[in-house]
């Protein structure tokens, strides 16, 4: 995912840089006479229409795949409760009592089955971002005090997954991490 996003960006950025360079050179070469662009209003209209259609397609293809709708019509076979706090994650398959929060020492999840993470925070806002074995971010949600965000995911590959906090939450934010295994 990240690689194709980066490629898309690099191609578009290079194209834009080319257009600007080309237009700049055309001005340098123009000499004394204004040749300009013929029929600019029509070209402007076409440019707008193409952009509108491209973005329209992007929106209609991507919006239905937003994480809010992921696996919405299935029932999760496992539920993991997550309570984030400065600067650790507490995770448990049982509901966590905010007054005396205790988690399980290790969490093991099945591969290819639907897992639901119910993520909240006991103090400030945190992030809950899942990284696979090659340290690639695959899914995330926020941990917000007073709210529970439900993140549904199916892990395809067994192995160790790392959790990092992705919302600045204070002086030890950078070491706030945890992990679980998928079997």
């Amino acid at each position, binding site marked *: 995912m990240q690689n194709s996003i980066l490629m898309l960006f690099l191609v578009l950025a290079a194209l834009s840089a080319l257009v600007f360079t080309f237009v700049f050179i055309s*001005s340098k070469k123009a000499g004394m006479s204004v040749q300009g662009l013929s029929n600019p209003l029509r070209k402007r209209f076409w440019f707008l229409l193409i952009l509108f259609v491209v973005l329209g397609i992007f929106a209609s293809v991507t919006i239905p795949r937003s994480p809010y709708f992921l696996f919405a019509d299935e029932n999760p076979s496992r539920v993991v409760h997550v309570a984030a706090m400065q600067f650790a994650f507490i995770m448990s398959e049982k509901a966590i009592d905010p007054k005396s929060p205790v988690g399980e020492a290790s969490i093991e999840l099945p591969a290819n089955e639907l897992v639901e993470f119910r993520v909240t925070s006991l103090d400030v806002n945190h992030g809950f971002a899942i990284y696979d074995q090659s340290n690639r971010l695959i899914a995330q949600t926020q941990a917000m005090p007073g709210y529970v965000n439900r993140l549904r995911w199916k892990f395809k590959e067994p192995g160790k997954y790392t959790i990092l906090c992705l919302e600045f939450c204070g002086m030890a934010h950078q070491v706030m991490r945890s992990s679980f295994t998928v079997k």
Partner: protein
Amino acid sequence: MESIKLRKITSLWILIVLVLFIVNIVLGILMRLNQGEIIHQSPITFYANMTTHGLTQIGIWFVAGMAAVNYLLQRYVKTSYSANVVAMVLTVIGILMLWASTYIGKFHAGWTFLYPLPLKIMWAKWATPMFLGSILVMGVGWLTWSVSMMTQLLKKYPLTRALAWQHFKKNPSTQTPPFILISMITLIGIIACLLGAVLLLAMYSAEYFSNGTFVNDALLMKNLTFFFGHTIANEMLYLGLAVIYELFPEVGGRPKWKTTWYVALAWNCTLVFILTAFFHHLYMDFVQPVGFQIVGQIASYMASLPAASVTIFSVLVAVYRTPIKWSLTNLLFFIGVAGWVIGGLGAVIDVTITNNFVLHNTLWVPAHFHTYNALGNVLFSLAFFHWFFNPIYQGHP
């Protein structure tokens, strides 16, 4: 007389911005060195630097845009010198309060100071009110400045004319200069987001002084925070665009740009999209109503349409196969537009919710906004500074 005073205060603004910019670059480089493990700062020092750097950068490039728009606005309407002075005094006091909070008090909640982090005291107790106070002081100064500019503008151009609505009819009887239109649209957005900041600070103080009897709603506070933070960071770029519409044709020795129906339409649409795009900062808060999430993606997409098809297209058309007197001023404007486009592409990619799922709060985000700020917005302001101090262009306004 008036214009000499305005020149002096604008020069002073430029001086303040450039000095603080250098300080900020040093802070930025220190952060990068620390991330690259070439130097080793304590996390608190790092985050205090980050907070100072972020808020000061937003502040200085915002006031740089405001000072430029104020200076050029004087060509059309009489602007208030005292409002300009009030803004400057309060900005300087605000920055000093910010530094006191981050460097003496060790406050380090980031420039987004996401609720409730500022209230979880991990620094000197007084540093939280000092930091929030610094935002209040700057916000009041900027609100005074923008409201004063807007009222002066409205005295000469009634609202519908300032918004160029007469251009939607065939053969409009009067022209609204593009500079007036864009300034008006931008000032409305700025005033709206600064009022949002006032509300945000009021909710903070209600909790702060209630001794635990009143607790805010974290989701509401996050919406308010980004309504303010996203919008102000976005509007400062639009201040730069107003300056481009005014100066780009002029310094190139080309006829002034005119408002047409599509320019008027584009900017009026921009106002709507710019005030609703901030929802994209809450994509990963799944409890936010899904309608807002979708509005966030669509408004952010739509905001790029008038920008691309009107402003960027116009800049390209103005240059394409057209002899232009190139100088550092319009070259900086031109490169700035290119940087803005490239940073904007990064933004449109990230604003797609499915992409944001793997990009939210990663390095992609600072990468995109540093591109359009450092290679876009900053260049627009530097172009204005160069124009302002260039003897060839003396005598303006």
